[in-house]
């Protein structure tokens, strides 16, 4: 049993173990959940330390037959792209458990069980190397999130949960049709084998077929990202979800979409991707600007952060469809950044909600006086989110813009407007909530961070700084994986050969250039 299988199995085991804990012992339930989540996280750190960043292909691979007919494999493995997303999932799960420690007091057992099941599904999505297995995990992750929003959410939780489920389901059934179609042509679900067949022209799609298949996959992923105009489920889901739900949704689940685009859509259907790229990029840029403008006028903090996600994810899509090494690297880095900084924003907004029981910006003001530490942390996160140099988002946004500029300078110009707007809405939010006069309601309710709250937020802040100042810890495996993806899709060799040949060097080059 490789370490990777252990990382996948632990949350599932935790889920089943939780089912057998009596429901009148909430403290034991919380303890077990956090223990499982922490062990999973530690195990996943092992993945990073023993990951060979120069190694080609999938590492920690396991390939056994799950269902003999039609042949479906339990085939998992990670490359530089999956590695960090897995660790992002395992990092955020214990944080979510800590955040929900007190705030979830009804049906505690189900809540933590669903959270672990969600972790299981998310890790599975990022490590599956079999199209069918990928689809299975994709759907499995949907169910716990549906319950997390629907049971423990705010007033309009049911509407939001059902909308979330139906949007994703509608997209994913089309993907299922695509998966089956590919199987009928290739005779296998194994992703590497399918790519090999495509490369060797053992199977070939006509351009019409390729376009339809591309769209079948693309729509499923675009809904999840979410790409404008398919984003309407997201503000509802985010606002109504409990804090832990919002964090998992924003930080990890949205990455399922961008991960799918990068891992499957582009390498499988490069021609169609190239043909659609201008349209997709236009949508991404609209998303960047539109998300930022809508965020600016939100009276609700959570909704503001939700729309900012639409804007940030637009950058990721832009990076991917620039088809340049830098753009792809930036997109992946931005996926992680968004996971860390938006996750932290949701955690902090959750803290404010627990104190004041309101999400309306007008109910706050002058919070910096009663809660200076909370304000400081919020400020750091805000600055990270708007892309201040030395904090993480700067790196990702810079790389995306650079990559986009290489492909088409105009794209970078329009996208850069989004960066400016993000500074506007985030700083304005900060000003309204933390500065100014402190109303009586705020002074009496809002207190500073507790130990548990510190424990949940510090890892995220540390990551913001680490990822902002020392990219070589993270970028080399990503660059390597992205180079492989571009190779598979036979794209933009021009831009890549202009950089030093070995991918490892490319990363150094990138950081030196900065």
């Amino acid at each position: 049993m490789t370490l990777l299988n252990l990382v996948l199995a632990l949350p599932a085991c935790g889920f089943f173990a939780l089912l057998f804990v009596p429901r009148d012992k909430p403290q034991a339930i919380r303890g077990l959940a956090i223990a499982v989540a922490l062990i999973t996280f530690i195990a996943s750190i092992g993945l990073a330390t023993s990951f060979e960043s120069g190694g080609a292909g999938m590492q920690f691979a396991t390939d056994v037959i799950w269902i003999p007919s039609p042949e479906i494999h339990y085939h998992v493995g990670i490359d530089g792209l999956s590695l960090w997303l897995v660790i992002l999932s395992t990092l955020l799960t214990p944080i979510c458990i800590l955040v929900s420690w007190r705030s979830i007091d009804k049906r505690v057992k189900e809540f933590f069980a669903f959270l672990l099941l969600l972790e299981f599904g998310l890790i599975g999505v990022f490590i599956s190397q079999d199209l069918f297995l990928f689809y299975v995990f994709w759907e499995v992750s949907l169910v716990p999130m549906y319950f997390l929003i629907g049971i423990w959410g705010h007033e309009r939780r049911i509407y939001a949960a059902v909308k979330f489920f139906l949007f994703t389901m509608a997209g994913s059934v089309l993907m299922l049709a695509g998966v089956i179609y590919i199987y009928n042509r290739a005779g296998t679900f194994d992703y590497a084998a399918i790519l090999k067949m495509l490369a060797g022209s053992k199977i070939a799609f006509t351009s019409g077929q390729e376009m339809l298949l591309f769209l079948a996959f693309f729509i499923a992923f675009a809904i999840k990202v979410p790409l404008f105009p398919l984003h309407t489920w997201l503000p509802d889901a985010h606002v109504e979800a409990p804090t832990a739900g919002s964090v998992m949704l924003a930080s990890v689940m949205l990455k399922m979409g961008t991960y799918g685009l990068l891992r499957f859509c582009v390498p499988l259907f490069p021609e169609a991707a190239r043909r659609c790229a201008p349209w997709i990029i236009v949508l991404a840029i609209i998303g960047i600007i539109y998300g930022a403008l809508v965020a600016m006028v939100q009276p609700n903090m959570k909704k503001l952060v939700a729309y900012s996600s639409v804007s940030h994810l637009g950058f990721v899509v832009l990076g991917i469809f620039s088809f340049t090494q830098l753009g792809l690297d930036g997109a992946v880095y931005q996926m992680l950044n968004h996971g860390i900084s938006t996750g932290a924003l949701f955690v902090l907004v959750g803290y404010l909600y627990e104190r004041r029981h309101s999400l309306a910006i007008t109910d706050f003001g002058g919070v910096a006086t009663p809660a200076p530490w909370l304000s400081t942390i919020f400020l750091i996160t805000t600055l990270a989110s708007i892309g201040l140099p030395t904090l993480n988002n700067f790196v990702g946004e810079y790389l995306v813009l650079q990559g986009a500029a290489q492909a088409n300078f105009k794209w970078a110009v329009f996208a850069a407007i989004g960066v400016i707007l993000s500074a506007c809405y985030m700083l304005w939010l900060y000003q309204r909530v933390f500065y100014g006069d402190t109303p009586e309601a705020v002074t009496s309710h809002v207190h500073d961070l507790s130990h548990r709250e510190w424990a949940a937020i510090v890892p995220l802040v540390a990551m913001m700084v680490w990822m902002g100042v020392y990219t070589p810890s993270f970028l080399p495996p990503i660059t390597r994986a992205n180079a492989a993806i571009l190779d598979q899709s036979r794209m933009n060799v021009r831009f890549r050969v202009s950089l030093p040949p070995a991918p490892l060097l490319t990363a150094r080059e990138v950081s030196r250039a900065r």
Partner: protein
Amino acid sequence: MPADFFPKSVELLRFLPEIVLTIVGTLLMVLESIGGQRWGRLYGNLSLAGLAGALAAAIWAYGSPGPAFSGMMIADGFGAFFRILVISVGILTVLASYRYLGREGVDTGEYHALILFSIMGQCIMVTANDLIMIFIGLEISSIASYVLAGYLREDKRNNESALKYFLLGSFATAFLLYGIAWIYGLTKSTDLTVIRGVLLSHDATVSPILVAVSAALMLVGLGFKVSGAPFQIWAPDVYQGAPAPVSAFMSAAPKAAAFAVLLRIFMTAFAPIGSGWEPLVWLSALLSMTIGNFAALTQSNVKRLLAYSSIAHAGYVLVAVAARSETGTAAAMFYLAAYALMNVGAFAVVTHLSGKGERFVGVDDFAGLAERQPFTAALLTIFLLSLIGVPLTGGFFGKFYIFKAALESHLVWLTVLGLLNSAVAAYYYLRILVVMYMHEPSEAASAAEPLSTGLKAALVLPALGTFFLGIFPSALLIFAGKSAVLVR
């Protein structure tokens, strides 16, 4: 007198399941006249024992395949698969009925006898290789079902249900019979293999138009029995009115048997004119899925909702029929098995929660069930997720195999429309999950008694089966795949 006038002993053994069911069913009626309602529990136990015996006999008969009764019947893998399926549904129904019958004060042997006779008829249907035997089996099964639908004779809804079922059912049977008469007139035979031979020989005296009419007539008759659109009108009223365990039974067993007959007739006798009937099945599949799913969206009565959902599920199976391949047949078989498990399970929960006189069958009556009875709610969740088609459940693999077979047969649009349909379907199943987990407990959820042993078995067994099919589907699929090779 022909040499094989008396059946050989091996032929009788091949039909041991039917014989066991008949004997136990008759015995139940005799006992009923002696013991009345005092022996209520005994009847249930006896019919369980009979069904278990029949199940064992059916499994045994799988090991000794071959024709019987001058080739009118055939005990092949296909028949064995469906026999095991309908008998298992019978077992689950009886398990789910114990408490229900006691609650309604109708703990009679008759009920169990009717269930056994109905299953016996279905066993004949699925093993018959001759249109006459198919018809006889269908009638035995149907007449028992008509009575069962109106079993609580004091109840108005039961009466309505039975009468509708009977009138429309007889009408549909007439279509089937008329079709049989036509094809007999054309081919001078009711034997499926012979009919196939005649159709293959391109005999100039056999008018293709008349053959088409006969096939269409039979399709109408069987379309009614499987509740495929546009012959589905009866299903919601009948399922809603009938006693809940009977609805569970009717939505699974007679439907599976009717599909078996449909597959056998159209994949053997009418296979030579496949390209002719495929568009009809294609259309019926699309209509069933669409009408079923969209009508279910607005239902407030769970039984009626499940009835519409069963129409939609018939549509999915019809997609597999339209694929006209052995993979398609195997997919249909797998789906029917998975569907039987999840649907009987869901109806068993309805049976449990409905209370005396079936007062609580609204979607809102499920409110807060998760708080009052987390275990029951969790089981219903499994069935509903399987009905939606979420991975790791049998329903998912059922859909997967069906649409895979359909794509292999190049039914691209039907696949896309079918998959979109299944996304629509998610909405109404989610509604039940929503009220169950996210609303405050209702009167019904609070009043529900703890699960009885029989019901617990009738819920846990299908739930385990659903998971098993969702995680290790290949065992059943291989069985289905082997059995899908029909004798021609």
